């Protein structure tokens, strides 16, 4: 990887290599190292830092549309990455293509609405301002950029779902297989490149923001028993544990 970095540094011609090979790897390493370190060393700070307690009404128009939008979009990207062929197959019929393109746009509008409200709420409400850190603003603005660039791509560089599956998924897979191939990515329009770089930058700052709450989403609640009893005394049978 060091050699790749050195190569990348050798000139603007290699900027693509830096952005689409070196940076992704650097970001993945940083992401894993920093989130794990924070989880082990300072677990106390893994929290969503909800501010609903301080302000209840506007919070609804932040958290609900934002998460509805972003979680759907995130899952959409994940599907495009995991089963690109399935997406291409689905998109063969124009009507089906329009349905997911329109769906994605609706989710994006929802996310954008939530984010804009997040900024307004954090600026206008004096209580919420108190619990807003520098990193909160940075990450919200980065997410805002990400959603806006994504929407630009969706509207002006059609059809995103197709070339995500056709071009980006193979490139991402090539990164994962440690055999990076950026030939297709080189020719993408600037808007798409900005969207990709933005995504990796978000992953880079992720461990240092409240976004870590995404890693501790409590799915175990779906199957755990209602009551939890913990014993200090050793040697109890599992049934007694409950």
């Amino acid at each position, binding site marked *: 990887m060091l050699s790749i970095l050195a190569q990348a540094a050798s000139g603007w011609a290699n900027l693509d290599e830096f952005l689409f090979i070196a940076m992704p790897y650097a970001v993945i390493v940083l992401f894993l190292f920093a989130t794990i370190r924070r989880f082990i060393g300072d677990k106390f700070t893994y929290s969503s830092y909800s501010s609903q307690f301080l302000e209840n009404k506007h919070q609804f128009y932040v958290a609900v549309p934002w998460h509805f939008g972003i979680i759907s979009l995130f899952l959409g990207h994940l599907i495009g990455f995991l089963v690109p062929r399935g997406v291409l197959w689905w998109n063969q019929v124009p009507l089906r293509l329009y349905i997911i393109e329109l769906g994605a746009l609706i989710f994006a509008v929802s996310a954008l609405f939530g984010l804009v409200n997040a900024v307004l709420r954090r600026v206008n409400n004096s209580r919420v301002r108190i619990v807003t850190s520098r990193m909160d603003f940075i990450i919200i603005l980065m997410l805002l950029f990400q959603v806006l660039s994504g929407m630009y791509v969706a509207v002006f560089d059609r059809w995103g779902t197709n070339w995500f599956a056709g071009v980006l998924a193979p490139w991402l897979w090539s990164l994962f297989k440690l055999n990076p191939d950026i030939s297709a990515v080189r020719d993408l329009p600037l808007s798409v490149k900005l969207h990709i770089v933005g995504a990796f930058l978000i992953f880079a700052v992720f461990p240092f923001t409240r976004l870590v709450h995404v890693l501790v989403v409590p799915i175990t609640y779906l199957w755990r028993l209602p009551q*939890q009893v913990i014993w200090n005394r050793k040697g109890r049978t599992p049934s007694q544990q409950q």
Partner: protein
Amino acid sequence: MDVRAQVSMVFHLDKCIGCHTCSIACKNIWTDRRGTEYMWFNNVETKPGTGYPTQWENQDKYKGGWEVSGGTLRLKSTSKAKYLPNIFHNPTMPTMDDYYEPWTYRYQDLFNSPPGDDQPIARAVSMVTGEPMEIKAGPNWDDDLGGSPIYASNDVNLSAVTEQQRQQLNALERLVFFYFPRICNHCLNPACVASCPSGALYKRGEDGIVLINQKRCRAWRSCVSACPYKKSYYNWNTGKSEKCLLCYPRLETGQAPACFHSCVGRIRYLGVLLYDADRINEVAKLPQDKLIDGQRDLILDPFDPKVIEGAKKNGMTDEFIQFAQRSPVYKFVKVWKIALPPHLEFRTLPMLFYVPALLPVLGSTENDIYKSNTKPEDIFHKFNEMRVPMEYLANLFAAGDVNKMNYTLRKLMAVRVFKRAQTVGDIPMATALETLAQADTNEKEAEAIYRMTALPTFAQRFVIPPLAREVAIEAYKDPQEHKKEAGFGFTIEPKRGL
């Protein structure tokens, strides 16, 4: 039978003078940090009144506690289907405005103002934002009724009280109220624990104390909504919920919890109850009119050999069982049956019990002349004209069952009549004995109730079992080693993250 121990509590409301010493003791130890200023793990409410947070008993609004639907017990506030949407925006969570915005004063202004014609003042500033604020509410805004019936009339326990009684209460309301100190009930079927998506809350096996693991809490806020007593609080600064810990570091070293220890009226009792954990769910599901008896049944007799055997099987030592046998809580709740749980209809099986306040009409005026009623028929007859209606007290402490409340109050009154006959002598002893019999009690029990109520020593009020955490640890680790590693919990300062 799965015999478990619960460190349980009794508060004797007739002894509470409403001084808030308990609240202050607790605040000084546990909630004087940023983000916790508004929390009162221990608070003292005036009843009738709306309490803290406002109207916490109104579960149509807050959806706390459990309900039985289709034969199963369900949380009112959340479910496996609802918990995720609730995380983003919890529709029934109280906000700071339902409690109050904590404030302080700019005392420095008193010293630093330039000389002038006016007296300098210390302005109230919010402890959240630091900005000047107008104080509109506090944790005890309607303390001693706040001089007005406005708050009291919003008390949800008045629902069963007739319009006529309400009017009487209003006419007399400046004369009658009582205090209702509250801490976490360390419930047997805690709604807070069951609601937590992260599983951060848990009940300790050995003593039943309900705690929140601060490292697993992620600010999903479910417990705040689910606890019908609103005894789990959200720390807006650290992004963690916090609650009464029954001062376990004190209990583990043999000391009474701070609010108990400092109680001026000596209203508080603490001791172990043994109960059958296998039957918790079954009892919590009982129809409302069976709940009080059901919970009493759940509590086991610590002298019963079968119970002792079960207790030993679950690792309780002989010494521990002896403490359960001496527990004052056991006597109040199970033997004398004069301590009742608050709002058992919330179905969390609270383990803090209250001896209700006696607020009878002991006198009447005829032609402007005061006449006292000391004849038992008068006293018991006048029960129906109590200054606080029986229905009200029953709503609060007997899951709405007036008979249970009647039984309790009769017995408490009979003890008084008996002691009056004994010490003052203006009531014939024969009458007193008759009163005792009518109240399902006898001389011996009355004497015991009197002693435990009026003359208990520190050691009789607080029968703190040997929790022997160090022994439990010894079983798997060198305690010295453990002390080095674990200490009091945190090695990094627990402060808000990025």
